[in-house]
């Protein structure tokens, strides 16, 4: 009995220690962003001064990041959902190869992808200096996540037979795609969308090489603030980033939760009239 209690105590302690390991730096960082003088400590008092300073100095990076992530979402939706659909429907060996190739941008370091983009398009001045250059990098990086997420849902339903059923009722390709295919991979599209937005907002590796002084995104601005300004300002910046990203992560969790499958038995003898 006693050893049971001790075991439980040990497990609880270990879990709490791991949680603390993960959470304490985040909490300290948030506090640093709200403290008047970090080197004096909390006694110096709490303030929103640093948050406002970030807002004044880096507001444009926040809106640019949101803009790029939404544009990125739009592009990955338009490219990724049909890609996943075609990969599912064809089911050939070639489609397996394409699926693996799509994963490459995740495996290859972001810096390498960025360098490749620069050597390919760097000469096109107006493109190189516009935010769409960063968008291209983000799409390359996030598209696999959208495709994978939709593929997973499509693999779990018998899409071919569903479409055949719709076709037997007279539905043409467009009607089948919008009435049957899209609604039935809704969860995959939602999960993929949140993933894409989250990844795009936080993307640093690629963006750091792709950006120009006029096209800084939030993570690039954050690095900038940490490198050249007071620690409090960098921390306040982190706080703003967390406020943007945590709701997205929570939504992702809510969607990822599998739906409860109900099991319905047949009555042994159906009611008859």
């Amino acid at each position, binding site marked *: 009995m006693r050893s049971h209690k001790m075991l439980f105590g040990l497990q609880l302690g270990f879990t709490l220690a791991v949680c603390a390991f993960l959470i304490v730096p985040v909490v300290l960082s948030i506090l640093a962003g709200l403290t008047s003088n970090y080197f004096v400590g909390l006694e110096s008092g709490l303030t929103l001064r640093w948050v406002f300073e970030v807002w004044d100095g880096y507001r444009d990076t926040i809106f640019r990041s949101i803009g790029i992530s939404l544009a990125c979402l739009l592009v990955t939706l338009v490219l990724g959902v049909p890609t996943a659909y075609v990969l599912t429907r064809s089911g050939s060996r070639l489609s397996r190869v394409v699926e693996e190739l799509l994963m490459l941008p995740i495996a290859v370091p972001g810096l390498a992808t960025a360098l490749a983009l620069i050597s390919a398009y760097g000469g096109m001045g107006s493109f190189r200096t516009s935010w769409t250059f960063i968008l291209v990098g983000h799409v390359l990086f996030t598209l696999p996540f959208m495709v994978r997420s939709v593929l997973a849902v499509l693999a779990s*339903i*018998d899409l071919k*037979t*569903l479409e*055949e*059923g*719709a*076709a*037997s*009722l*007279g*539905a*043409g390709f467009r*009607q089948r795609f919008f*009435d*049957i295919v899209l*609604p*039935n991979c*809704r969860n995959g599209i939602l999960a993929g969308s949140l993933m894409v937005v989250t990844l795009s907002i936080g993307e640093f590796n690629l963006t750091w090489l792709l950006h120009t002084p006029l096209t800084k995104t939030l993570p690039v601005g954050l690095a900038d603030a940490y490198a050249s300004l007071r620690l409090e300002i960098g921390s306040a910046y982190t706080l703003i980033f967390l406020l943007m990203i945590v709701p997205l992560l929570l939504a992702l969790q809510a969607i990822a939760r599998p739906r409860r*499958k*109900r099991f*319905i*038995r*047949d*009555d*042994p*003898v*159906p*009611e*008859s*009239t």
Partner: protein
Amino acid sequence: MTRPASTKPLSISLKSCAKTFADGTRVLEPLDLDIHAGETLVLLGPSGCGKTTTLRLIAGLEQPDAGGRVLFDGVDVTAQSIELRNVGMVFQSYALFPNMTVAGNVGYGLRIRKLPAAAQRARVAEMLAMMRIEALADRSIDQLSGGQRQRVALARALAVQPRALLLDEPLTALDAQLRDALRVEINQLLRELGITAIYVTHDQAEAMALGDRIIVMSHGRVAQTGTPREIYHQPASHFVAGFIGTMNRLSGEMGANGFVCAAGIVPWYGGHSAADEILFRPEDVRIAEEGEPADLVGSVAAAFFLGDRTRLFVDVGDRQPLVMESTARCTRGVGEQVRLRVDPQGVLDLSSQRGSL
């Protein structure tokens, strides 16, 4: 009546329809088939015999190899995709749309046809009433049992007043008791509607109960076409004889008084034959009355009490014991000697078909 009397049932013809898959597998040898207006035709056979492929050719889900033609009422529809053929289809997995309610599923074909909303609602209500699932109208598909799904699938296929109804093993996914009940219901429904129906199954009992005609298929070919009675009583080949119901086989040779085998002489009135094997059904054998001469004598190898009757396996010195049925009161035990009579009308000689399927 749920069908306006004006819609005439459809007749369907396949002209030398063969099917070879992309990997070179020939799943269907060139097939000629005429399906009469209003009949229920059952395609029966083991898996891989080409029955589902035949159904999908008729539906328009597969294209026949070059040279094959599909005719609806004499009109060539080979080039038409399934969307344009207006055939109702019920799939083994039902293929109900999980993103729609029961009513949404049943009404989908009407929505595609852009019927006025009021007419759609009326037709959906009519179909739900016909399948007795009115109460389920607003349920989602994952809230339905297998039997309920089956009814929704039927209602959905029939709602658009299809020219023909195609059913691909619709009862396979259900448990035995429900299967029997639904079989009766589908049978009634098809008779009532008078619609041309093509029903694919591997279950011979289902085929017997539902079919006006049965086509038995094997290895991409038609093994036999006929009414259930013809298929059962006059099987054209050993394959059909073995696939439909239970068949007893005895080996021996023709003699002057009948077919001579290890356990006796079976009466044979079929004239001259070089048969070294005869076949007959379990119901054509019975235990001889007291004092009656016996055709065969054997000993009971096993006896199974089935409630309403007793199934006996009788060892007659052949490779396999004879299967026969006796009354429920039969108390013969294993090892006991039994004297048997064989009904000469039930004795078949398929020796001329040897070598065919």
